[in-house]
Protein backbone atom coordinates (compact mmCIF):
# COMPACT_ATOMS: atom_id res chain seq x y z
CA UNK A 1 0.00 0.00 0.00
CA UNK A 2 2.70 2.39 1.06
CA UNK A 3 4.59 1.38 -2.00
CA UNK A 4 1.90 2.39 -4.43
CA UNK A 5 1.26 5.66 -2.62
CA UNK A 6 4.91 6.53 -2.81
CA UNK A 7 4.95 5.34 -6.38
CA UNK A 8 5.99 8.27 -8.53
CA UNK A 9 8.73 9.37 -6.15
CA UNK A 10 11.16 6.43 -6.45
CA UNK A 11 10.73 6.65 -10.18
CA UNK A 12 12.12 10.14 -10.31
CA UNK A 13 14.77 9.59 -7.65
CA UNK A 14 16.18 6.14 -8.40
CA UNK A 15 14.89 6.35 -11.99
CA UNK A 16 17.66 6.11 -14.47
CA UNK A 17 18.30 4.04 -17.50
CA UNK A 18 18.87 0.78 -15.60
CA UNK A 19 15.43 0.81 -14.05
CA UNK A 20 13.82 1.69 -17.37
CA UNK A 21 15.54 -1.32 -18.90
CA UNK A 22 14.41 -3.55 -16.04
CA UNK A 23 10.80 -2.47 -16.50
CA UNK A 24 11.00 -2.98 -20.27
CA UNK A 25 12.40 -6.47 -19.79
CA UNK A 26 9.64 -7.40 -17.37
CA UNK A 27 6.99 -6.14 -19.80
CA UNK A 28 8.52 -8.12 -22.64
CA UNK A 29 8.58 -11.30 -20.56
CA UNK A 30 4.93 -11.00 -19.54
CA UNK A 31 3.89 -10.44 -23.17
CA UNK A 32 5.93 -13.37 -24.40
CA UNK A 33 4.38 -15.67 -21.82
CA UNK A 34 0.91 -14.47 -22.73
CA UNK A 35 1.50 -14.94 -26.44
CA UNK A 36 2.92 -18.42 -25.99
CA UNK A 37 -0.28 -19.52 -24.32
CA UNK A 38 -1.86 -19.50 -27.76
CA UNK A 39 0.64 -21.61 -29.65
CA UNK A 40 -1.55 -22.55 -32.60
CA UNK A 41 -2.52 -18.93 -33.09
CA UNK A 42 1.13 -17.93 -32.96
CA UNK A 43 1.99 -20.51 -35.61
CA UNK A 44 -0.88 -19.28 -37.76
CA UNK A 45 0.32 -15.71 -37.48
CA UNK A 46 3.81 -16.74 -38.47
CA UNK A 47 2.50 -18.52 -41.56
CA UNK A 48 0.33 -15.53 -42.37
CA UNK A 49 3.39 -13.31 -42.31
CA UNK A 50 5.14 -15.55 -44.81
CA UNK A 51 2.15 -15.35 -47.17
CA UNK A 52 1.99 -11.59 -46.74
CA UNK A 53 5.65 -11.16 -47.58
CA UNK A 54 5.22 -13.40 -50.62
CA UNK A 55 2.24 -11.37 -51.86
CA UNK A 56 4.20 -8.16 -51.29
CA UNK A 57 6.93 -9.39 -53.61
CA UNK A 58 4.49 -10.22 -56.44
CA UNK A 59 3.79 -6.60 -57.54
CA UNK A 60 7.52 -6.01 -57.56
CA UNK A 61 8.09 -8.99 -59.85
CA UNK A 62 5.26 -7.92 -62.14
CA UNK A 63 6.60 -4.37 -62.41
CA UNK A 64 10.13 -5.52 -63.13
CA UNK A 65 8.85 -8.13 -65.52
CA UNK A 66 8.10 -5.10 -67.67
CA UNK A 67 11.04 -2.80 -67.01
CA UNK A 68 14.71 -2.96 -66.02
CA UNK A 69 14.47 0.03 -63.71
CA UNK A 70 11.84 2.45 -62.44
CA UNK A 71 12.84 6.02 -61.59
CA UNK A 72 16.43 4.87 -61.17
CA UNK A 73 15.59 1.91 -58.94
CA UNK A 74 16.44 -1.61 -60.01
CA UNK A 75 14.52 -4.66 -58.85
CA UNK A 76 17.08 -5.62 -56.22
CA UNK A 77 17.32 -2.10 -54.88
CA UNK A 78 13.55 -1.98 -54.47
CA UNK A 79 13.71 -5.38 -52.80
CA UNK A 80 15.90 -3.75 -50.16
CA UNK A 81 13.30 -1.04 -49.57
CA UNK A 82 10.69 -3.79 -49.23
CA UNK A 83 12.99 -5.55 -46.79
CA UNK A 84 13.26 -2.47 -44.58
CA UNK A 85 9.53 -2.03 -44.83
CA UNK A 86 8.87 -5.61 -43.74
CA UNK A 87 11.28 -5.22 -40.85
CA UNK A 88 9.65 -2.00 -39.65
CA UNK A 89 6.18 -3.50 -40.08
CA UNK A 90 7.29 -6.23 -37.70
CA UNK A 91 8.34 -3.62 -35.15
CA UNK A 92 5.16 -1.62 -35.64
CA UNK A 93 2.76 -4.55 -35.48
CA UNK A 94 4.77 -6.41 -32.88
CA UNK A 95 5.15 -3.67 -30.31
CA UNK A 96 3.57 -0.32 -31.07
CA UNK A 97 0.23 -1.24 -32.63
CA UNK A 98 -1.03 -3.66 -29.97
CA UNK A 99 0.24 -1.54 -27.08
CA UNK A 100 -0.98 1.79 -28.29
CA UNK A 101 -4.37 0.48 -29.38
CA UNK A 102 -4.67 -0.82 -25.83
CA UNK A 103 -3.96 2.67 -24.44
CA UNK A 104 -6.59 4.24 -26.65
CA UNK A 105 -9.05 1.76 -25.17
CA UNK A 106 -7.83 2.51 -21.65
CA UNK A 107 -8.25 6.25 -22.13
CA UNK A 108 -11.79 5.67 -23.30
CA UNK A 109 -12.90 3.53 -20.40
CA UNK A 110 -10.79 5.18 -17.75
CA UNK A 111 -8.58 2.25 -16.78
CA UNK A 112 -5.49 4.22 -17.72
CA UNK A 113 -5.54 5.27 -14.06
CA UNK A 114 -4.17 1.88 -13.12
CA UNK A 115 -1.22 2.42 -15.42
CA UNK A 116 -0.56 5.94 -14.19
CA UNK A 117 -0.33 4.95 -10.51
CA UNK A 118 2.43 2.47 -11.25
CA UNK A 119 5.87 3.66 -10.17
CA UNK A 120 7.45 3.84 -13.62
CA UNK A 121 7.39 6.19 -16.56
CA UNK A 122 3.89 6.04 -18.03
CA UNK A 123 5.11 6.42 -21.59
CA UNK A 124 7.29 3.34 -21.23
CA UNK A 125 4.54 1.28 -19.60
CA UNK A 126 2.08 2.32 -22.26
CA UNK A 127 4.39 1.80 -25.22
CA UNK A 128 5.36 -1.77 -24.44
CA UNK A 129 2.34 -2.99 -22.53
CA UNK A 130 1.48 -5.60 -25.11
CA UNK A 131 3.85 -7.30 -27.49
CA UNK A 132 3.30 -9.89 -30.20
CA UNK A 133 6.50 -11.94 -30.23
CA UNK A 134 5.41 -13.80 -33.38
CA UNK A 135 6.18 -10.66 -35.32
CA UNK A 136 9.81 -11.66 -35.08
CA UNK A 137 9.00 -13.58 -38.29
CA UNK A 138 8.53 -10.19 -39.98
CA UNK A 139 11.95 -9.08 -38.80
CA UNK A 140 13.56 -12.26 -40.10
CA UNK A 141 11.72 -12.00 -43.44
CA UNK A 142 12.74 -8.36 -43.79
CA UNK A 143 16.40 -9.16 -43.22
CA UNK A 144 16.01 -12.15 -45.52
CA UNK A 145 14.77 -9.93 -48.35
CA UNK A 146 17.70 -7.55 -47.87
CA UNK A 147 20.23 -10.39 -47.87
CA UNK A 148 18.56 -11.92 -50.95
CA UNK A 149 18.84 -8.61 -52.77
CA UNK A 150 22.55 -8.35 -52.00
CA UNK A 151 23.20 -11.95 -52.99
CA UNK A 152 21.47 -11.29 -56.30
CA UNK A 153 23.50 -8.14 -56.84
CA UNK A 154 26.64 -10.12 -56.07
CA UNK A 155 28.14 -7.57 -53.73
CA UNK A 156 28.02 -6.67 -50.06
CA UNK A 157 27.65 -3.28 -48.36
CA UNK A 158 30.82 -1.74 -46.91
CA UNK A 159 31.13 -1.70 -43.09
CA UNK A 160 30.69 2.07 -43.13
CA UNK A 161 27.44 1.88 -45.07
CA UNK A 162 26.24 -0.90 -42.81
CA UNK A 163 26.97 1.14 -39.70
CA UNK A 164 25.26 4.20 -41.16
CA UNK A 165 22.17 2.23 -42.13
CA UNK A 166 22.02 0.77 -38.62
CA UNK A 167 22.04 4.26 -37.13
CA UNK A 168 19.38 5.28 -39.63
CA UNK A 169 17.35 2.24 -38.67
CA UNK A 170 17.31 3.52 -35.09
CA UNK A 171 16.23 6.93 -36.31
CA UNK A 172 13.52 5.30 -38.44
CA UNK A 173 12.26 3.47 -35.37
CA UNK A 174 12.27 6.73 -33.44
CA UNK A 175 10.16 8.41 -36.13
CA UNK A 176 7.75 5.50 -36.33
CA UNK A 177 7.39 5.47 -32.57
CA UNK A 178 6.93 9.24 -32.42
CA UNK A 179 4.13 9.22 -34.97
CA UNK A 180 2.36 6.42 -33.14
CA UNK A 181 2.74 8.31 -29.86
CA UNK A 182 1.37 11.48 -31.43
CA UNK A 183 -1.70 9.60 -32.64
CA UNK A 184 -2.25 8.22 -29.16
CA UNK A 185 -1.85 11.68 -27.65
CA UNK A 186 -4.83 12.74 -29.71
CA UNK A 187 -6.83 10.09 -27.86
CA UNK A 188 -6.82 12.32 -24.78
CA UNK A 189 -8.60 15.07 -26.65
CA UNK A 190 -10.76 13.25 -29.19
CA UNK A 191 -12.17 10.04 -27.85
CA UNK A 192 -12.29 7.66 -30.78
CA UNK A 193 -9.00 7.56 -32.57
CA UNK A 194 -8.49 3.89 -33.27
CA UNK A 195 -9.52 4.56 -36.84
CA UNK A 196 -6.93 7.32 -36.99
CA UNK A 197 -4.40 4.74 -35.92
CA UNK A 198 -5.50 2.41 -38.70
CA UNK A 199 -5.23 5.33 -41.10
CA UNK A 200 -1.65 5.78 -39.98
CA UNK A 201 -0.79 2.11 -40.39
CA UNK A 202 -2.41 2.00 -43.82
CA UNK A 203 -0.50 5.10 -44.86
CA UNK A 204 2.66 3.50 -43.56
CA UNK A 205 1.96 0.80 -46.14
CA UNK A 206 3.09 3.29 -48.78
CA UNK A 207 6.60 3.08 -47.39
CA UNK A 208 7.02 -0.26 -49.13
CA UNK A 209 7.92 1.68 -52.28
CA UNK A 210 10.77 4.21 -52.49
CA UNK A 211 9.30 7.66 -52.01
CA UNK A 212 11.18 8.92 -55.05
CA UNK A 213 8.71 7.16 -57.35
CA UNK A 214 6.02 9.55 -56.17
CA UNK A 215 5.82 12.82 -57.99
CA UNK A 216 5.04 16.37 -56.91
CA UNK A 217 3.10 17.04 -53.74
CA UNK A 218 3.10 13.44 -52.52
CA UNK A 219 6.88 13.35 -52.47
CA UNK A 220 7.09 16.52 -50.39
CA UNK A 221 4.47 15.19 -47.97
CA UNK A 222 6.22 11.87 -47.58
CA UNK A 223 9.55 13.54 -46.98
CA UNK A 224 8.68 16.32 -44.55
CA UNK A 225 5.12 15.98 -43.21
CA UNK A 226 4.77 12.25 -42.82
CA UNK A 227 8.40 11.22 -43.14
CA UNK A 228 7.96 7.87 -44.86
CA UNK A 229 11.18 8.57 -46.74
CA UNK A 230 13.04 8.62 -43.44
CA UNK A 231 11.74 5.19 -42.54
CA UNK A 232 12.56 2.99 -45.52
CA UNK A 233 13.99 4.91 -48.47
CA UNK A 234 16.81 6.65 -46.61
CA UNK A 235 18.07 3.55 -44.74
CA UNK A 236 17.86 1.56 -47.99
CA UNK A 237 19.91 4.18 -49.81
CA UNK A 238 22.41 4.09 -46.96
CA UNK A 239 22.93 0.35 -47.12
CA UNK A 240 23.30 0.65 -50.89
CA UNK A 241 25.97 3.29 -50.35
CA UNK A 242 23.98 5.83 -52.34
CA UNK A 243 23.09 8.21 -49.53
CA UNK A 244 24.81 11.58 -49.32
CA UNK A 245 26.20 12.55 -45.93
CA UNK A 246 24.21 15.75 -45.78
CA UNK A 247 20.99 13.80 -46.22
CA UNK A 248 22.03 11.34 -43.53
CA UNK A 249 22.70 14.14 -41.05
CA UNK A 250 19.42 15.81 -41.98
CA UNK A 251 17.54 12.55 -41.44
CA UNK A 252 19.10 12.05 -38.02
CA UNK A 253 18.38 15.59 -36.86
CA UNK A 254 14.86 15.32 -38.21
CA UNK A 255 14.14 12.13 -36.32
CA UNK A 256 15.52 13.48 -33.06
CA UNK A 257 13.35 16.56 -33.45
CA UNK A 258 10.34 14.36 -34.19
CA UNK A 259 10.95 12.29 -31.09
CA UNK A 260 11.31 15.32 -28.83
CA UNK A 261 8.10 16.84 -30.19
CA UNK A 262 6.24 13.59 -29.64
CA UNK A 263 7.50 13.28 -26.06
CA UNK A 264 6.51 16.89 -25.37
CA UNK A 265 3.01 16.44 -26.83
CA UNK A 266 2.56 13.20 -24.88
CA UNK A 267 3.44 14.88 -21.57
CA UNK A 268 1.14 17.80 -22.36
CA UNK A 269 -1.79 15.57 -23.23
CA UNK A 270 -1.19 13.36 -20.21
CA UNK A 271 -1.55 16.49 -18.09
CA UNK A 272 -4.95 17.02 -19.68
CA UNK A 273 -6.11 13.53 -18.86
CA UNK A 274 -9.05 13.56 -16.48
CA UNK A 275 -9.73 10.01 -15.53
CA UNK A 276 -13.17 8.47 -15.61
CA UNK A 277 -13.46 8.66 -11.84
CA UNK A 278 -12.47 12.25 -11.18
Amino acid at each position, binding site marked *: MAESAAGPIPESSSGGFASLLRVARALARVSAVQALQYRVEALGEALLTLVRVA*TAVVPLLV*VFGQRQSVEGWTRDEMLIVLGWFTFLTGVLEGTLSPSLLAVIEQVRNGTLDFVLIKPADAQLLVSFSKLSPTRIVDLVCGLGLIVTAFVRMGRWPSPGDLALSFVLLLSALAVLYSIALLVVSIAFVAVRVDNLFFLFTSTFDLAR*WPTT*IFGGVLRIIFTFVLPLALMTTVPALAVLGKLEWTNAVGALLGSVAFFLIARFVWLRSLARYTSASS
Partner: protein
Amino acid sequence: MSAQAQSIAREPISSADDRETSWTESLRAGWRAWPGLWRAGIASAVAYRAEFVIWMLTTNMPLVMLALWSAVARSGPVAGYSSADFTAYYLTSLMVRVLTGCWVVWEMSMEIRSGTLSLRLLRPLHPFVAYAAENLAAFPLRALVATPILVLLVVFAHDKLTHDWLAWALFLPMLLGAWLITFLVMAIVGTLALFMESAIGLFQLWLSVSFVLSGYLIPLDLFPPALRQLTAVLPFRFTVSLPIELVLGRLSHAHALELMAAQWAYVAGFGVVALWLWRRGLSRFGAFGG
Protein backbone atom coordinates in the same frame (compact mmCIF):
# COMPACT_ATOMS: atom_id res chain seq x y z
CA MET B 1 -37.02 -18.40 -13.52
CA SER B 2 -33.77 -20.05 -14.43
CA ALA B 3 -35.61 -22.79 -16.24
CA GLN B 4 -37.41 -20.13 -18.21
CA ALA B 5 -34.18 -18.32 -19.01
CA GLN B 6 -32.73 -21.58 -20.15
CA SER B 7 -35.63 -22.26 -22.42
CA ILE B 8 -35.23 -18.81 -23.93
CA ALA B 9 -31.57 -19.46 -24.45
CA ARG B 10 -32.27 -22.81 -26.03
CA GLU B 11 -35.18 -21.65 -28.08
CA PRO B 12 -33.32 -19.89 -30.88
CA ILE B 13 -31.28 -22.96 -31.61
CA SER B 14 -34.31 -25.16 -31.99
CA SER B 15 -36.10 -22.45 -33.93
CA ALA B 16 -33.08 -22.21 -36.20
CA ASP B 17 -33.62 -25.87 -36.94
CA ASP B 18 -37.30 -25.21 -37.55
CA ARG B 19 -36.46 -22.40 -39.86
CA GLU B 20 -34.42 -24.70 -42.01
CA THR B 21 -37.62 -26.54 -42.70
CA SER B 22 -39.69 -23.43 -43.41
CA TRP B 23 -37.63 -21.39 -45.78
CA THR B 24 -40.47 -19.24 -47.01
CA GLU B 25 -41.31 -18.07 -43.51
CA SER B 26 -37.73 -17.08 -42.83
CA LEU B 27 -37.58 -15.17 -46.08
CA ARG B 28 -40.82 -13.38 -45.27
CA ALA B 29 -39.50 -12.39 -41.82
CA GLY B 30 -36.36 -11.09 -43.42
CA TRP B 31 -38.32 -9.13 -45.96
CA ARG B 32 -40.50 -7.52 -43.28
CA ALA B 33 -37.59 -6.64 -41.02
CA TRP B 34 -35.42 -5.30 -43.83
CA PRO B 35 -36.65 -1.66 -43.93
CA GLY B 36 -36.23 -1.29 -40.18
CA LEU B 37 -32.78 -2.84 -40.17
CA TRP B 38 -31.78 -0.71 -43.12
CA ARG B 39 -32.88 2.51 -41.40
CA ALA B 40 -31.10 1.57 -38.18
CA GLY B 41 -27.95 0.75 -40.14
CA ILE B 42 -28.01 4.09 -41.94
CA ALA B 43 -28.53 5.91 -38.65
CA SER B 44 -25.51 4.23 -37.07
CA ALA B 45 -23.35 4.86 -40.13
CA VAL B 46 -24.31 8.54 -40.10
CA ALA B 47 -23.81 8.81 -36.34
CA TYR B 48 -20.14 7.89 -36.74
CA ARG B 49 -19.58 9.76 -40.00
CA ALA B 50 -16.16 11.16 -39.14
CA GLU B 51 -14.92 7.70 -38.27
CA PHE B 52 -16.54 6.38 -41.39
CA VAL B 53 -14.70 8.84 -43.61
CA ILE B 54 -11.38 8.14 -41.88
CA TRP B 55 -12.05 4.45 -42.35
CA MET B 56 -12.66 5.04 -46.05
CA LEU B 57 -9.38 6.93 -46.28
CA THR B 58 -7.50 3.83 -45.18
CA THR B 59 -8.34 2.43 -48.61
CA ASN B 60 -5.47 4.11 -50.40
CA MET B 61 -3.53 1.24 -51.91
CA PRO B 62 -4.86 1.70 -55.48
CA LEU B 63 -3.56 5.27 -55.48
CA VAL B 64 -0.10 4.09 -54.50
CA MET B 65 -0.12 1.48 -57.22
CA LEU B 66 -1.28 4.18 -59.60
CA ALA B 67 1.71 6.33 -58.64
CA LEU B 68 4.00 3.36 -59.14
CA TRP B 69 2.62 2.33 -62.52
CA SER B 70 2.51 5.93 -63.73
CA ALA B 71 6.21 6.12 -63.01
CA VAL B 72 6.68 2.90 -64.96
CA ALA B 73 4.47 4.00 -67.87
CA ARG B 74 6.27 7.32 -68.23
CA SER B 75 8.68 5.62 -70.59
CA GLY B 76 5.93 4.05 -72.73
CA PRO B 77 2.91 1.78 -72.38
CA VAL B 78 3.18 -1.38 -70.27
CA ALA B 79 1.52 -4.48 -71.76
CA GLY B 80 -0.96 -2.27 -73.59
CA TYR B 81 -1.61 -0.01 -70.59
CA SER B 82 -0.77 3.65 -71.05
CA SER B 83 -0.56 6.14 -68.21
CA ALA B 84 -4.20 7.11 -68.85
CA ASP B 85 -5.26 3.45 -68.80
CA PHE B 86 -3.67 3.02 -65.39
CA THR B 87 -5.43 6.13 -64.10
CA ALA B 88 -8.78 4.79 -65.27
CA TYR B 89 -8.03 1.33 -63.92
CA TYR B 90 -6.99 2.32 -60.42
CA LEU B 91 -9.66 4.98 -59.93
CA THR B 92 -12.26 2.36 -60.86
CA SER B 93 -10.56 -0.15 -58.59
CA LEU B 94 -10.77 2.33 -55.74
CA MET B 95 -14.42 3.02 -56.50
CA VAL B 96 -15.33 -0.67 -56.62
CA ARG B 97 -13.52 -1.27 -53.37
CA VAL B 98 -15.25 1.63 -51.61
CA LEU B 99 -18.66 0.54 -52.87
CA THR B 100 -18.34 -3.16 -52.06
CA GLY B 101 -16.68 -2.90 -48.65
CA CYS B 102 -17.83 -5.14 -45.86
CA TRP B 103 -16.71 -5.80 -42.29
CA VAL B 104 -18.93 -8.61 -41.09
CA VAL B 105 -16.12 -11.04 -40.29
CA TRP B 106 -14.72 -8.79 -37.57
CA GLU B 107 -18.16 -8.24 -36.13
CA MET B 108 -18.99 -11.94 -36.10
CA SER B 109 -15.73 -13.02 -34.60
CA MET B 110 -16.05 -10.38 -31.87
CA GLU B 111 -19.64 -11.30 -31.10
CA ILE B 112 -18.89 -15.00 -30.97
CA ARG B 113 -15.93 -14.45 -28.69
CA SER B 114 -17.74 -12.09 -26.34
CA GLY B 115 -20.97 -14.09 -26.40
CA THR B 116 -23.14 -11.20 -27.58
CA LEU B 117 -24.09 -13.35 -30.53
CA SER B 118 -26.79 -14.77 -28.24
CA LEU B 119 -28.68 -11.48 -28.54
CA ARG B 120 -28.89 -11.98 -32.26
CA LEU B 121 -30.01 -15.54 -31.87
CA LEU B 122 -32.97 -14.39 -29.80
CA ARG B 123 -34.36 -12.50 -32.77
CA PRO B 124 -36.69 -14.37 -35.09
CA LEU B 125 -34.42 -13.61 -38.01
CA HIS B 126 -31.44 -15.34 -39.50
CA PRO B 127 -28.33 -13.45 -38.28
CA PHE B 128 -26.96 -13.41 -41.81
CA VAL B 129 -29.94 -11.31 -42.88
CA ALA B 130 -29.33 -8.87 -40.06
CA TYR B 131 -25.61 -8.66 -40.79
CA ALA B 132 -26.30 -8.15 -44.48
CA ALA B 133 -28.77 -5.36 -43.74
CA GLU B 134 -26.35 -3.59 -41.40
CA ASN B 135 -23.54 -3.79 -43.90
CA LEU B 136 -25.60 -2.77 -46.89
CA ALA B 137 -27.01 0.18 -44.96
CA ALA B 138 -23.61 1.81 -45.22
CA PHE B 139 -24.01 1.81 -48.99
CA PRO B 140 -25.55 5.32 -49.32
CA LEU B 141 -22.65 6.77 -47.34
CA ARG B 142 -20.22 4.70 -49.37
CA ALA B 143 -21.81 6.01 -52.55
CA LEU B 144 -21.24 9.52 -51.20
CA VAL B 145 -17.55 8.78 -50.70
CA ALA B 146 -17.39 7.17 -54.15
CA THR B 147 -18.89 10.21 -55.88
CA PRO B 148 -15.70 12.31 -55.91
CA ILE B 149 -13.83 9.29 -57.26
CA LEU B 150 -16.39 8.99 -60.03
CA VAL B 151 -16.00 12.70 -60.79
CA LEU B 152 -12.22 12.29 -61.01
CA LEU B 153 -12.75 9.31 -63.24
CA VAL B 154 -14.99 11.23 -65.60
CA VAL B 155 -12.68 14.26 -65.63
CA PHE B 156 -9.39 12.43 -66.14
CA ALA B 157 -10.37 9.27 -67.98
CA HIS B 158 -13.75 9.75 -69.64
CA ASP B 159 -12.50 8.43 -72.96
CA LYS B 160 -11.41 5.21 -71.27
CA LEU B 161 -14.88 4.51 -69.88
CA THR B 162 -17.27 2.44 -71.91
CA HIS B 163 -20.26 4.10 -73.60
CA ASP B 164 -22.06 0.81 -73.85
CA TRP B 165 -25.48 0.96 -72.17
CA LEU B 166 -25.52 -2.76 -71.39
CA ALA B 167 -22.25 -2.51 -69.50
CA TRP B 168 -23.58 0.27 -67.28
CA ALA B 169 -26.84 -1.63 -66.80
CA LEU B 170 -24.87 -4.66 -65.62
CA PHE B 171 -22.59 -2.60 -63.37
CA LEU B 172 -24.82 -2.50 -60.29
CA PRO B 173 -25.84 -6.19 -60.35
CA MET B 174 -22.18 -7.02 -60.81
CA LEU B 175 -21.22 -4.86 -57.85
CA LEU B 176 -23.91 -6.62 -55.83
CA GLY B 177 -22.46 -9.96 -56.87
CA ALA B 178 -18.99 -8.79 -55.90
CA TRP B 179 -20.26 -7.59 -52.55
CA LEU B 180 -22.12 -10.84 -51.95
CA ILE B 181 -19.00 -12.93 -52.59
CA THR B 182 -17.05 -10.80 -50.13
CA PHE B 183 -19.90 -10.90 -47.62
CA LEU B 184 -20.41 -14.66 -47.86
CA VAL B 185 -16.71 -15.45 -47.61
CA MET B 186 -16.61 -13.23 -44.53
CA ALA B 187 -19.67 -15.01 -43.17
CA ILE B 188 -18.04 -18.39 -43.76
CA VAL B 189 -14.81 -17.38 -42.06
CA GLY B 190 -16.80 -15.64 -39.29
CA THR B 191 -18.77 -18.83 -38.74
CA LEU B 192 -15.50 -20.72 -38.45
CA ALA B 193 -14.94 -18.67 -35.28
CA LEU B 194 -17.47 -21.07 -33.76
CA PHE B 195 -15.04 -23.92 -34.41
CA MET B 196 -11.64 -22.33 -33.82
CA GLU B 197 -10.07 -19.47 -31.95
CA SER B 198 -8.57 -17.15 -34.50
CA ALA B 199 -10.75 -16.95 -37.56
CA ILE B 200 -9.54 -13.42 -38.27
CA GLY B 201 -6.11 -14.72 -39.14
CA LEU B 202 -7.67 -16.97 -41.72
CA PHE B 203 -9.54 -14.06 -43.21
CA GLN B 204 -6.38 -12.00 -43.38
CA LEU B 205 -4.88 -14.83 -45.35
CA TRP B 206 -7.77 -14.61 -47.81
CA LEU B 207 -7.39 -10.84 -47.88
CA SER B 208 -3.70 -10.76 -48.69
CA VAL B 209 -4.06 -13.33 -51.46
CA SER B 210 -7.14 -11.53 -52.74
CA PHE B 211 -5.31 -8.18 -52.92
CA VAL B 212 -2.95 -9.64 -55.46
CA LEU B 213 -5.18 -12.04 -57.39
CA SER B 214 -8.38 -9.96 -57.55
CA GLY B 215 -6.95 -7.23 -59.72
CA TYR B 216 -7.19 -4.76 -56.84
CA LEU B 217 -3.48 -4.00 -56.82
CA ILE B 218 -2.39 -5.16 -60.26
CA PRO B 219 -4.43 -5.39 -63.46
CA LEU B 220 -4.71 -9.11 -64.16
CA ASP B 221 -3.62 -8.46 -67.76
CA LEU B 222 -0.11 -7.81 -66.50
CA PHE B 223 0.33 -11.26 -65.02
CA PRO B 224 2.19 -13.98 -66.90
CA PRO B 225 -0.23 -16.22 -68.87
CA ALA B 226 -0.14 -19.16 -66.44
CA LEU B 227 -1.10 -17.00 -63.49
CA ARG B 228 -3.75 -15.25 -65.57
CA GLN B 229 -5.41 -18.56 -66.36
CA LEU B 230 -5.46 -19.34 -62.66
CA THR B 231 -7.10 -16.02 -61.79
CA ALA B 232 -9.78 -16.62 -64.41
CA VAL B 233 -11.00 -19.63 -62.41
CA LEU B 234 -10.53 -18.45 -58.81
CA PRO B 235 -13.26 -16.41 -57.11
CA PHE B 236 -11.04 -13.38 -56.49
CA ARG B 237 -11.40 -11.90 -59.96
CA PHE B 238 -15.17 -11.64 -59.56
CA THR B 239 -14.85 -9.36 -56.52
CA VAL B 240 -12.84 -6.50 -58.04
CA SER B 241 -11.47 -7.04 -61.51
CA LEU B 242 -14.72 -8.03 -63.22
CA PRO B 243 -16.62 -4.75 -62.59
CA ILE B 244 -13.51 -2.81 -63.62
CA GLU B 245 -13.14 -4.74 -66.87
CA LEU B 246 -16.82 -4.13 -67.54
CA VAL B 247 -16.72 -0.37 -67.01
CA LEU B 248 -13.51 0.04 -68.97
CA GLY B 249 -15.15 -1.67 -71.94
CA ARG B 250 -12.83 -4.64 -72.03
CA LEU B 251 -15.62 -7.23 -72.23
CA SER B 252 -17.93 -8.09 -75.11
CA HIS B 253 -21.65 -8.44 -74.35
CA ALA B 254 -21.59 -12.23 -74.46
CA HIS B 255 -18.43 -12.45 -72.41
CA ALA B 256 -19.74 -10.03 -69.79
CA LEU B 257 -22.96 -12.00 -69.34
CA GLU B 258 -21.06 -15.26 -69.20
CA LEU B 259 -18.70 -13.94 -66.52
CA MET B 260 -21.57 -12.50 -64.53
CA ALA B 261 -23.24 -15.90 -64.56
CA ALA B 262 -20.01 -17.37 -63.21
CA GLN B 263 -19.94 -14.66 -60.55
CA TRP B 264 -23.46 -15.44 -59.39
CA ALA B 265 -22.69 -19.15 -59.46
CA TYR B 266 -19.92 -18.40 -56.95
CA VAL B 267 -22.43 -16.39 -54.91
CA ALA B 268 -24.80 -19.36 -54.83
CA GLY B 269 -22.00 -21.77 -53.95
CA PHE B 270 -20.63 -19.65 -51.11
CA GLY B 271 -24.20 -19.06 -49.91
CA VAL B 272 -24.88 -22.78 -49.57
CA VAL B 273 -21.57 -23.36 -47.78
CA ALA B 274 -22.19 -20.44 -45.41
CA LEU B 275 -25.67 -21.60 -44.41
CA TRP B 276 -24.59 -25.22 -43.99
CA LEU B 277 -21.57 -24.26 -41.91
CA TRP B 278 -23.64 -21.94 -39.78
CA ARG B 279 -26.10 -24.69 -38.93
CA ARG B 280 -23.27 -27.04 -38.03
CA GLY B 281 -21.46 -24.41 -36.00
CA LEU B 282 -24.37 -23.01 -34.05
CA SER B 283 -24.86 -26.21 -32.12
CA ARG B 284 -21.35 -25.69 -30.73
CA PHE B 285 -22.10 -22.17 -29.52
CA GLY B 286 -22.48 -21.83 -25.77
CA ALA B 287 -22.89 -18.15 -25.00
CA PHE B 288 -20.61 -16.95 -22.25
CA GLY B 289 -22.70 -15.51 -19.45
CA GLY B 290 -25.50 -15.74 -21.94
